[in-house]
């Protein structure tokens, strides 16, 4: 079972560590109180009292209670899903809740007046349902669940970004929620989270026996008289409720739910009851200490970094640290061997796919809307519009092709059907590079932005490769390193968003994924990159055929396992990094392309990758055309549109699944 294997501590260490943490928290809070600026004026004393009672104390209480609620939520999820890396952030619950609040603010503000908490809960439940649906076929295997959760979080983030862009500065409070801020002006949030925590803890106490039985496998638990699935649903709903109540009051606070149970287990808690007791306490202290540090580093112009983002920065390193301690999953039958159907003439099918992509490209070039309605461009009008349409078409096709190919390589490498190129962390790295350029330079040129994004992507790539090499290139380790890096990068980005300003709007445009800034120069550069990166696949086909058979077989067949994995990872990451600059961090094209290619029956490594690339190109071409047409003259973000159109289809595909392919 997926239980952490941690060194067993001796003696009374856990108690001492807890005491030390509590002491640290108290000292920091005393410093916060002492550092309050003295007020002036006749009512200064009364005001200072008021601030203490209505701002400082409720803030501390909210930090403690929210931390405890998240800790409990994480502990419950980890127990129920038998997944040591589950928590409200990795499962996409926080992102789903936040997206629901964002949508409500933009389209139905009255809903927020009725119930912020209910809105957030609906979003969280929907998110967790989607994540579980996507990972159903893989038996809720930890890494797969987390990949699905992170993909969903990215998607929710892209949607929020698009909404903020469309509503302008107008909704700057959305930034605050995204990064989780604990400022308070009354006791109401503390009371709300506190009562939910009390109810949740009571329920957990009542359900302690079923929770203990959850350690067993389902059959054993059922034989002891437990309605396993029903109990699981109840407990998941409870965990989502706890997390949603926190999100509705203070925004997204990442990874406390991941860290608290892990630290509890590290501190020696073994039985479910002990973990369920220790995790909330540790979570409370963690958030309290972080928030005090945030207050101590704040200038009079506001916090340096919002508390939620500060805690979120912990997420990446923590996942990395947990990584070598994750048990290796039981060996799976390699996914590439058995195919439901196999094309007899893959060459001809590839040609058909290429023709299809060209056809969509032609449609995108010729058909469009002008100020009066639909129009087919011909002659001089076409020549005039081609200046704008050709670069976008070339960029969409090249980026789609690159993402499709990268996804195909990733799936062959990891044997995981959810391993899209987005989870490599490379695109998030590109975002951090962009953020840096936008923060440091007031009016960066396109070339500078491209260079910064490439630098960020390469930096992230180097880190992922380093971590993967350190853990020996096991597929799961590679995926988790990518996710860990992505988490840290996203926390950094949310801190940049929280500060607002013109730079953050450019970054939002990138987040939501848009091809509209591609000039002719960039488009042809991207096309050249695509060719250079796709051509090596033609000679790497053998590796792609053999590697999925496992390290032993591969070595016996004369494939240099380590070197080939390194080369393929590098190739996939470069493809992702280049494409990400143009279409943003998430488009799901890297997942949709390979799935459709497999369904069509492309079996050999080479034809599989090329087919995925062609399908990816076609999908992104179509998405880009729709993005330009649907709300003309307003343009929708291409990447987001591809994700919205492709997402439901992908979930349906994964649900339907072919058991033999996992």
């Amino acid at each position, binding site marked *: 079972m997926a239980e952490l294997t941690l060194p067993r501590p001796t003696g009374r260490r856990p108690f001492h560590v807890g005491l030390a943490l509590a002491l640290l928290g108290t000292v920091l809070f005393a410093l916060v109180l002492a550092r309050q*600026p003295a*007020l*002036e*004026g006749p*009512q200064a004393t*009364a*005001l200072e009292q*008021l*601030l203490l009672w*209505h*701002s*400082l104390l409720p803030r501390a209480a909210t930090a403690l209670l929210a931390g405890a609620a998240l800790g409990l939520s994480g502990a419950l999820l980890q127990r129920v899903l038998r997944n040591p890396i589950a928590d409200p952030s990795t499962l996409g619950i926080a992102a789903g809740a936040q997206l629901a609040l964002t949508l409500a*603010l933009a389209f139905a503000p*009255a809903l*927020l*007046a009725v119930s912020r908490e209910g809105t957030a809960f609906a979003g969280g439940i929907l998110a967790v349902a989607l994540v579980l649906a996507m990972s159903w076929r893989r038996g809720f295997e930890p890494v797969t669940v987390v990949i699905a959760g992170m993909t969903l979080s990215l998607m929710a983030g892209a949607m929020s970004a698009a909404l903020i*862009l469309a*509503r*302008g*500065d*107008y909704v*700057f*409070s959305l930034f*605050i*929620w995204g990064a989780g*801020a604990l*400022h308070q*002006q*009354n006791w109401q949030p503390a009371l709300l989270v506190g009562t939910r925590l009390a109810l949740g803890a009571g329920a957990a106490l009542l359900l302690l026996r079923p929770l203990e039985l959850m350690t067993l496998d389902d059959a054993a638990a059922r034989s002891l008289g437990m309605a396993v699935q029903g109990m699981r649903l109840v407990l998941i709903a409870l965990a989502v409720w706890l997390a949603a109540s926190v999100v509705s009051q203070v925004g997204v606070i990442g990874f406390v739910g991941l860290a608290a149970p892990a630290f509890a287990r590290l501190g020696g808690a073994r039985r479910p009851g002990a973990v369920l007791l220790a995790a909330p306490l540790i979570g409370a202290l963690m958030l309290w200490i972080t928030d005090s540090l945030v207050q101590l580093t704040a200038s*009079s*112009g*506001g916090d340096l970094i919002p508390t939620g983002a500060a805690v979120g920065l912990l997420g990446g390193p923590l996942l990395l640290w947990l990584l070598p301690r994750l048990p290796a999953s039981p060996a799976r039958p390699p996914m590439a061997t058995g195919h439901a159907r196999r094309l007899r003439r893959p060459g001809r099918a590839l040609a058909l796919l290429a023709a299809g992509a060209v056809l969509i490209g032609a449609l995108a070039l010729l058909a469009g809307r*002008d*100020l009066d309605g639909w129009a087919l461009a011909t002659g001089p009008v076409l020549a*005039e*519009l081609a*200046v*704008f349409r050709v670069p976008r078409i070339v960029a969409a096709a090249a980026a789609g092709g690159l993402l499709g190919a990268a996804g195909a390589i990733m799936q062959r490498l990891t044997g995981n059907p959810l391993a899209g190129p987005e989870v490599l962390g490379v695109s998030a790295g590109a975002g951090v590079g962009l953020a840096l350029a936008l923060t440091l330079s*007031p*009016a960066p*040129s*396109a070339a500078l*932005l491209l260079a910064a994004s490439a630098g960020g992507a390469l930096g992230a790539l180097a880190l992922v490769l380093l971590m993967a090499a350190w853990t020996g290139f096991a597929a799961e380790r590679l995926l988790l390193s990518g996710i860990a890096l992505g988490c840290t990068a996203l926390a950094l980005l949310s801190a940049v968003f*929280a500060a*607002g*300003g*013109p730079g953050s*709007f*450019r970054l*939002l*445009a990138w987040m939501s994924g848009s091809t*509209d*800034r591609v*000039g002719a*120069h960039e488009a042809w550069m991207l096309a050249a990159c695509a060719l250079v990166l796709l051509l090596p696949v033609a000679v790497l086909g053998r590796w792609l055929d053999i590697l999925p058979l496992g390290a032993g077989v591969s070595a016996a067949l004369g494939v240099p396992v380590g070197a080939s994995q390194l080369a393929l990872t590098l190739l996939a990451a470069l493809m992702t990094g280049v494409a990400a600059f143009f279409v943003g961090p998430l488009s799901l094209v890297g997942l949709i392309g390979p799935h459709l290619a497999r369904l069509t029956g492309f079996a050999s490594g080479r034809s599989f990758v090329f087919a995925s690339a062609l399908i990816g190109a076609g999908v992104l071409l179509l998405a880009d055309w729709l993005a330009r047409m649907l709300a*003309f*003259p*307003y*343009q929708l*973000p291409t990447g987001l549109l591809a994700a919205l159109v492709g997402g439901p289809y992908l979930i349906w595909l994964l649900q339907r699944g072919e058991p033999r392919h996992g």
Partner: protein
Amino acid sequence: MRPGPGLSRRALLAAPLVLLAPGARAEGTALRVATIDWALLETLLGMGITPVAAAELVLFREVAVEPPVPPSVVDIGLRGAPNFEALRLTRPSLIFSSNYYAEMEPTLRLIAPVETLSIYRTGDPPFGRAEAAAERIGVVTGREEAARALIARVSAQIAAERQNLASHAGRPMLVLNLGDSRHFRVFGADSLFGEVLTRLGLANAWGERTSYAASAPIGLEALARFPDAFLVILRPVPPDAARVLSTSALWNALPNVRDRRFAVLDSVDPFGGLPAAARFARLLGAALRAEGEAAGRGGDLG
């Protein structure tokens, strides 16, 4: 109705006629300008020039409100992602852009020559730059007299408000937006509002620098540091925030709120041009003159 805005509206109504008049064609072609930037859109409209295309008009009408945009202006979509094809179809002969959109300039140049006028640059006070932008627009469109008229009109309006507000001279003000019931952002001395305050003879209570005219979101409790300031709250006020704050002990105990030393102003574009400056001065003047009347409404922000 005060003379200022009336004049601007008259000028605006006259603008199409001016374009049709033979005099306007002195330079050979009709004036067909487009703009991506909102501050420049305001300035153009304020000068009586109706552009053929401008960006994100749906939100502009909500946030900037004035000058009103004639229906003939084609909306070319989001400022951050304008539709180049739609812009091309309006056949502009000159496109105005600013530093925010530097990245898309090469593409814009495929459509028409681009004139980049940046009013907002980190650390640079915007009012003088807004006047310079109007002058430059006057030069490139051959409408220098309209530019001079706009600059003079806005100066005169602000000077008139200053006269009206003589009894408030030197009064500390805090201009802010509410994000939710717990956060606000404040406009510093380097913002358009900050400069208008100075020109009105008022003081900006926010002495610190801000990173981009407005500050990052700040916790509401920071307001307690400014018990003497008059709070100028710009709409939109989120409905959620208005509801929670009206019952909040901290909010209602703030000396400014308790003594009704605050006003809620209609939306003004914080990154606007000269017309936004005039609008802010007018709304603020009216609010300060009506200060006494707000009594009895409590901390209600409705």
